[in-house]
């Protein structure tokens, strides 16, 4: 007996270890949902504010709604199609059955990115515009295989003679199926549904490629937040979902459904009924709430619309509401994460956006490829508020100021942790070349984008960051390879949170993040400060501007939108939210003196000598940059 229990102990110990492994990240999220600071690593006291914020956040609530609706409907449809198909496939001959099952496996085994992109290509080829329905079709497509795979084995176990016997006894085929076959395969059907629901809930990549304007699920919303730091209200939502599912699970599993040892079958039958009722009520409640809110959202049709395509976190949301109230135009607002991701969407025309906010070089590319409409500046009287300096700067990518209106601008520079510099006796960085100083080994966060990484290398070599010269580019590539052992990680917007968290001593960052960083450092009472320098060699001066795509359907509304954003009070609101430098002189004049003098955000023009704006270099040169960058990354 003794030996047995020792073995049992080890078995239990192993189980507990695995459970800790599985649930450690989830516990982390739950703890973070009660954390008073936005920091992922620092505990700032207990709070419930993220829960309150979550319920007030319309974007999160809509995404939750979409996620549940898509998961439920796609799982249901997939279960019906899949169950019916399983019966059909089961009675196919050997070869056709093998072929069908082979093709059935494809969506499961194919990488999600290929599934997502291939579906997007197909929708465009079929002329189906991307939207809610395309996401639904895609989810059904990757869900059916899971249903078939869980129904088929059950179907094989059923005795086909019982079905024939039922028919002989006078049952019709349908009746025979529901009375005899179906009860046997119910467990398979249910687990197929559950699996489909789970897969749909967890999918990100396929949704990302097949969704259209204004459709966000929790996954796509989270993805757009990953870059700039997850909002704790997302952890709050996850915690709630987790607890809800856990409670339902405990109710259904620990209400005894088999006769208890005293054999009181009456009691267990009641328990079984209660259990079923709880499940049924819970699912009906979810369906009703989701269904009604979705219906009410989509049943209102608007004739006067505006499709806006913007960066994540790049507008104060109250500005959108204010615009809708003042003009009566309904805004459908959508997000992209990179210029490169936005471009094919506009080019393919799967969604007709009316107004988009790309960066300098991308505007040049879009204009050169005929994707942009000329703006009618008569409709934008507030253009006077934009400092002529930035209109002049825009000429480097929009030579006649015909296509774009500047929205934000900034520089790229070096951020460093003052305390770590002092403690480790490291020199304060002043130029790009310092990023090659071996004393910073493992302490550098580099930008994970081709142009920004090459900009750093090219500038440190004294070349133009728009270089098309192959030898210069090769030199820059070698320089980046030399730097790689010193780099801790290549990141994009995460550099902000990592630097605040003290993960690294030095990072390449966009100037617009500085206000947020300074506020967070103060809010979290950190014992260090983070300072920003514009490197001596000169840097990238970037401008993000509003443009109107050539295929826009509501061009005048788009011009009203641009005009509205140029109004000083609105520009001020957006500046306070985004914290990226504004080109709006009206808004600048409304700022505190302290902000006006903040050199990270509004640098002295003398510090910008040698700085350049990115140009579009053509597809071929872009291709060279990309393949050189791949060489760096694969070292």
């Amino acid at each position: 007996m003794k030996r047995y229990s020792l073995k049992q102990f080890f078995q239990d110990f192993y189980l507990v270890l695995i459970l800790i492994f599985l649930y450690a990240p989830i516990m982390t999220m739950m703890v973070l949902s009660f954390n008073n600071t936005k920091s992922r690593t620092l505990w700032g006291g207990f709070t419930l504010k993220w829960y309150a914020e979550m319920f007030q956040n319309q974007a999160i609530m809509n995404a939750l709604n979409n996620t549940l609706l898509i998961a439920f409907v796609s799982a249901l449809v997939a279960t019906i199609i899949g169950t019916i198909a399983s019966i059909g496939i089961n009675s196919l001959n050997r070869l056709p059955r093998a072929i069908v099952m082979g093709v059935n496996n494809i969506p499961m085994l194919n990488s999600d990115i290929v599934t997502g992109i291939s579906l997007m290509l197909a929708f465009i080829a079929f002329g189906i515009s991307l939207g809610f329905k395309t996401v639904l079709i895609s989810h059904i497509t990757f869900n059916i295989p899971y249903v078939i795979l869980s129904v088929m084995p059950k179907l094989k176990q059923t005795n086909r003679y019982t079905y024939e016997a039922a028919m002989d006894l006078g049952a019709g085929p349908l009746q025979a199926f529901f009375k005899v076959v179906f009860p046997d395969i119910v467990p398979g059907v249910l687990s197929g549904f559950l699996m489909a629901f789970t897969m749909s809930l967890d999918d990100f990549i396929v949704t990302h490629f097949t969704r259209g304007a204004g459709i966000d699920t929790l996954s796509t919303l989270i993805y757009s937040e990953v870059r700039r730091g997850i909002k704790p209200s997302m952890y709050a939502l996850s915690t709630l979902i987790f607890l809800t599912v856990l409670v339902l699970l405990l109710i259904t599993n620990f209400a005894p459904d088999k006769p208890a040892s005293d054999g009181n079958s009456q009691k267990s039958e009641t328990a079984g009924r209660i259990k079923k009722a709880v499940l049924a009520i819970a699912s009906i409640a979810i369906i009703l709430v989701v269904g009604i809110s979705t219906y009410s959202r989509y049943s209102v049709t608007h004739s006067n619309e505006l499709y806006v395509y913007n960066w994540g976190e790049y507008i104060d949301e109250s500005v959108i509401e204010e615009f809708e109230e003042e003009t009566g135009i309904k805004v459908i607002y959508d997000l992209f994460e990179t210029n490169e991701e936005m471009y094919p969407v506009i080019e393919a025309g799967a969604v007709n956006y009316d107004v988009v906010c790309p960066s300098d070089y991308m505007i040049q590319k879009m204009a050169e490829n005929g994707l942009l409409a000329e703006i009618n500046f008569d409709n934008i009287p507030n253009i006077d508020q934009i400092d002529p300096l930035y209109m002049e700067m825009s000429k480097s990518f929009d030579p006649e100021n015909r296509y774009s209106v500047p929205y934000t601008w900034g520089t790229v520079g070096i951020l460093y942790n003052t305390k770590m510099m002092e403690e480790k006796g490291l020199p304060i960085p002043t130029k790009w070349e310092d990023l090659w100083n071996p004393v910073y080994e493992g302490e550098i966060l580099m930008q994970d984008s081709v142009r920004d990484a090459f900009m750093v290398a090219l500038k440190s070599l004294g070349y133009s960051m728009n270089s098309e010269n192959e030898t210069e580019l090769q030199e820059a590539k070698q320089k980046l390879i030399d730097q790689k052992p010193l780099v801790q990680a290549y990141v994009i917007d995460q550099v902000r949170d990592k630097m605040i968290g003290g993960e690294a001593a030095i990072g390449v960052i966009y100037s617009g993040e500085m206000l947020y960083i300074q506020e967070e450092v103060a809010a979290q009472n950190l014992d260090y400060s983070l300072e920003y320098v514009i490197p001596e060699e000169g840097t990238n001066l970037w401008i993000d501007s509003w443009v109107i795509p050539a295929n826009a359907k509501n061009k005048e509304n788009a011009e009203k939108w641009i005009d509205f954003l140029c109004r000083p009070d609105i520009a001020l609101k957006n500046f306070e939210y985004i914290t990226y430098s504004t080109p709006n002189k009206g808004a600048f004049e409304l700022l505190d003196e302290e902000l006006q003098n903040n050199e990270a955000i509004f640098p002295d023009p003398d510090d910008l000598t040698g700085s350049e704006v990115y140009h579009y270099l053509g597809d071929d040169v872009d291709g060279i940059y990309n393949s050189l960058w791949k060489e760096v990354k694969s070292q």
Partner: protein
Amino acid sequence: MGMKSAKRLLAGPYIIWMIGFTVIPLLLIVFYGLTDRSGAFTLANVLSIGTPEHSKALFLSLGLSLISTLICLLLSFPLAMTLRKRGIGQGSFMVFIFILPMWMNFLLRTLAWQTLLEKNGVINGILNVLHLPGIAIINTPAAIILGMVYNFLPFMVLPIYNVMAKIDDNTINAAKDLGANEFQTLIHIWIPLSLPGIISGINMVFVPALTTFVISNLLGGSKILLIGNVIEQEFTKGSNWHLGSGLSLVLMIFILLSMALIAKYDKDGEGTAF
């Protein structure tokens, strides 16, 4: 027979669906993979797997996903055995315990690992309090393997457990009665009888691990380029869909190999996860 052919028709709607949304989209990828920007036929996209960057990324992906698959298998087999022997897995509870984490978003879970593993992360915080040396695996291949094992472990545990649950107790008792020791029972009973589940689990872990790009981005600090990252970058950043499609075609070879493996060892589709 008439009834049987009527039943066959039931497969019809799905076959049409499959042609529309699985086969045609796949053919589009093949088309893109075998043409260049001007639309002319070329093998260059597929052959570019031979360039040093691409083949290095492919071999690295193969290596990391093989290691992850092996770790998943080594963790899952004793786990499934324990669950079955102890009878804990009865009902749907066990299945739920393993898929419950999947109801929390995949990106959030992976990011949570970042929080746990970082230099100033939770684990190092705990180790620090205990005066133990910290760990430094974030932004290394080890962190990527951990992320893969974490995300795909349920896909290995569940099929193995489901197959094991069907093993008759009498078979095991018979082996013992005939004098087999624990090890012999393992080799001659447990492993052969769980083979369909093992094969299915290997597939369900290996293929997604081979093609992932999110895990290597979040836990590898983007310093480690996997083939999934290359493809993702061609589609989203490089805007070269032809090259991306061509490389995807190369990956499909591995998927075809997996399908052949399943067809060989899991004829009856027993090794399903659920």
